[in-house]
């Protein structure tokens, strides 16, 4: 469990970092909670590693005009505990608290997790439910991609070569909203066997808005659009949950076969929705 040799650079500025990333076979170290284990296993053997840990301006959480901006190098712990996230996007804070364990949350970063796009990662579910925008930057340009257009396949995102995640913009949740992240963690790895992020806005007894992000179940996280519609059209939680995963090919592994995983996703979707509805005012 010893990584192969590599060259290491730790740029101080974004410009410097983007210049380095623009050329060559370079891996980006953004915390390293996924990359370093892969390097130790020698499943990843990059020749050069660019550590974003010292780039100024990539770290921080702020709220401005109803949008919460979170720098790519912000740790899960910061997102879990920040007053800004807890006040304005509590779903994301709650989700962050489910990632790995305390030590992992102290080091792992939002940008790293999003760019790695593990099919069982927690954030994507919440980012989809929150309709977050992921801002990407390269030496040439900056662009913003909706979360729903960002996660394309297992470990595959809209990131182009030379691009990095700059920050994630989350529209602030309405104070009246209810939210919940329901996760079935794998007992060994802690990865999401399934994870459901739900947001609910009520209008009296009617559900005015439902947003449901699902992770762990398919090759990449997705929005359960049909379920959202069921709820917004006055359908029951049970009916909504029963549509989650329709048309998806569920992942299958030793812990959860495809049919069990699909079932879990539906059960936990119902539970997440129930919690979100109970929290909505």
């Amino acid at each position, binding site marked *: *469990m*010893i990584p*192969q*040799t590599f060259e290491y650079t730790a740029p101080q500025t974004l410009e410097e970092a983007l210049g380095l990333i623009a050329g060559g076979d370079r891996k980006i170290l953004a915390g390293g909670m996924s990359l370093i284990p892969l390097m130790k296993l*020698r499943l990843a053997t990059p020749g050069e590693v660019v550590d974003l840990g010292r780039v100024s301006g990539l770290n921080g959480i702020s709220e401005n005009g109803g949008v919460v901006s979170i720098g790519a190098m912000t740790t899960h712990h910061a997102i879990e505990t920040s007053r800004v996230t807890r006040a304005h996007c509590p779903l994301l804070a709650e989700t962050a608290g489910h990632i790995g364990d305390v030590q992992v949350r102290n080091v792992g970063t939002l940008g790293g997790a999003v760019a790695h796009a593990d099919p069982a990662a927690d954030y994507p579910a919440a980012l989809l439910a929150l309709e977050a925008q992921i801002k990407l930057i390269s030496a040439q340009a900056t662009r913003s991609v909706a979360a729903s257009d960002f996660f394309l396949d297992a470990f595959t995102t809209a990131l182009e070569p030379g691009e990095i995640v700059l920050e994630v913009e989350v529209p602030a949740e309405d104070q009246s909203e209810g939210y919940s992240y329901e996760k*079935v963690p*794998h*007992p*060994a*790895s802690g990865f999401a066997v399934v994870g459901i992020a739900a947001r609910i806005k009520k209008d009296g007894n009617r559900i005015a808005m439902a947003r449901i992000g699902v992770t762990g179940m398919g090759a990449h996280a997705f929005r359960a659009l049909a379920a959202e519609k069921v709820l917004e059209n006055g359908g029951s939680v049970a009916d909504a949950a029963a549509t989650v995963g329709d048309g998806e090919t569920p992942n299958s592994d*030793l*812990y*959860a*076969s495809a049919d*069990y995983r699909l*079932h*879990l996703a539906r*059960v*936990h979707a119902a539970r997440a929705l129930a919690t979100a509805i109970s929290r909505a005012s």
Partner: protein
Amino acid sequence: MATTISKPATLVGKGIRRQEDPRLITGTAVYVDDIKMPGMHHAAIVRSPHAAARIAGINTEAALAHPGVVAVFTGADVKNLGAVPCASSLPGLRVPHHHLLAQDRVYYTGHPVAVVVATDRYVAADAASLVEVQYDPQPAVADPEKALAAGAPAVHPQWPDNTSFTFHQEGGDTGQAFRDAEIVVKQRITSQRLIPTSIETRGVVAEWRPGEKSLTMFTSTQIPHLVRTLVAGILGMPENHLRVITPEVGGGFGSKLNVYAEEALMCYIAKEIGKPVKWVESRRENFQATIHGRGHVDYYELAAKRDGTMLGLKLKLIQDLGAYHQLLTPAIPTLSVLMMPGLYKFKSISADIIGVFTNCVPTDAYRGAGRPEATHGIERMVDILAAELHMDPAEIRFKNFVGKDEFPYATTTGLFYDSGNYALPLQNAMAQVDYAGLRQEQATARAAGKLMGIGLSTYGEICAIGPSAAMPAGGWESATVKIEPSGKVTVMTGASPHGQGEETTFAQIVADELGVDIDDVMVVHGDTAVVQYGIGTFGSRGTAVGGAALFYALQELKAKIKKFGAMLLGSDNVSLVGGSCVDDATGKSVSFAEMAVAAYHAKTLPPNTQPGLVATYFWEPPNFTFPFGAHIVVTDVDRETGRISIRRYVAVDDCGKIINPLLVAGQVHGGVAQGLGQALWEEAVYDEQGQLITGELTDYALPKASFMPLIESSHTETPSPVNPLGVKGVGEAGTIGCSPAVVNSVVDALSPLGVRHIDMPLTPQKIWKLIVQSGGLS
């Protein structure tokens, strides 16, 4: 001379904090990987990625050319050294020759093929990946029942039936019992492969001293002396030129009750390169190449009367041995047979073991070693019988227990249970949970469609292992007690504790026996150059055998001290009181220090007495001990997801006399955690090609803090007559009592759905599928 004597408080029985902890909580304890030596090299082992393959060739050139590499060893280099030893012998046992490194074939994933030695750990890892091994993969078989099927790939080509041994044991007349039976219940019960997973992996540092022609090996083991004898045998060197030092050991649980190829290899390499060499196992290696536990497929048949009286028990036991025999591999299932009657009065038993080779790492002793399998089997069968008879599982147990006046009790398997009151722990546990109330609550819950289970197990185990007649290489234990010239006391125990806390419990015994301050006692272990020969720590024997040896050594020493006391006091009637010797007539006393000085200065000596104050005792136990207890587990099963939550865990254990209740509680908690691990989460899974696909802790689920219920632990104390301390042993009790109680509880929860048995681990998916199959979701 002082005349006032204050008798120190009795320490035995007190839950005092441990003597060994200050070094452990400050990070200053020394484990194998903490050892550094001048000129020390590092070894990395190249292992087979295939479960079965011919080795067509090995090219070490690139590795040897890598800067910093000093040597690469392959099978050819060690071909003429001895084999990894198996100490067990059974009639007709087939023992494959277990070379230190693979010769022309590999037999399991992780089989060592070559060793790369370099100046640096990182360089060794780099160079290991440069060793090119050409494999010609062969069909593999990883499942013991498939290995027995006609046409299965032969693990060892010379034995196409994959059978290492068969073993039959019978007691009483099972034929008659099954003819007399009014009911017979049958069940296939598995006990899955488990990975012991001590948090410290194995590791070895070996150093050759050419001037002395001697080797020093630091190794993380439970049995330093046996390792010395057996590794010296492999290397063909005099064993008194091999010194084995066991520094701090970060957990063993049976996995370090063994002699491994790497221990002999590092000794060999240190001598070959003339430099100290270190090898520390990675977690992957630990999973692939350190022994696993369990691996049973058991077919039970239980004969009984309709009133619940159990008559006879038949067992066909298929033991997955793996590809080789490690130290005790074939012996483990025989322990299961010995304990198959449990705590019950069976008139007859019959057992057939089939030991099966598979292309997997060998199985061997893991916490409980054979007894958890036996207990799981009988305790499941009793519950299955109770369910068939519509009897309460507690009632059927009370009916069949060996009575408290029947000890020593001769079992149909040839054992003599030492002492017991088997009903008492169950009565206590039932009172503690309000069993009748719980059953009522369960009825209400069931009526509401909830799946609530109450499970119990009443276990017996065989401990204080064991009388030498029943052991391959001696079952006694040794202790030396020295009163140093300054009056301080040094204990050298042949047992080699590694977390159990004998530095404390032994010091408690010494402090009480000699009346000295516990802080004046030092317990030394794990160095063959310092400590007299010993057997080691396993089979819940540390205190029950090692502590008894210590007790007898102390009696000898006390007799000698008294002679010096009498001499100094000029009296024939003296007593040892506290840390002094007192003249019974005058009350005058001499202190320990004064007697020690007299003994070592030896200006005058009592008649027929040697100078010095040292006593050594090798104690041969006359019997095993048989702890017992009752565990009750209350579970709730989530009907939607199959998830199990444990509402209550009550353990009432009887491990005989208790020396330190705090440490005993710790053993129970840890044992239960490993039992729960087996019951709910852990399973070493090999795929059909023999790949271990639970290859790291990212897939093999060890219990975490949040998984564990609160364990409500209490005790009954039935002293063992086997040893003078009255102790029975407690290292494995929690594990043995746990898994059947949990499974019984979950089966009880699911019984309204017609479920009668579930094999471990009880994963949510498995439970969910059972619920779905039974239509229980609707």
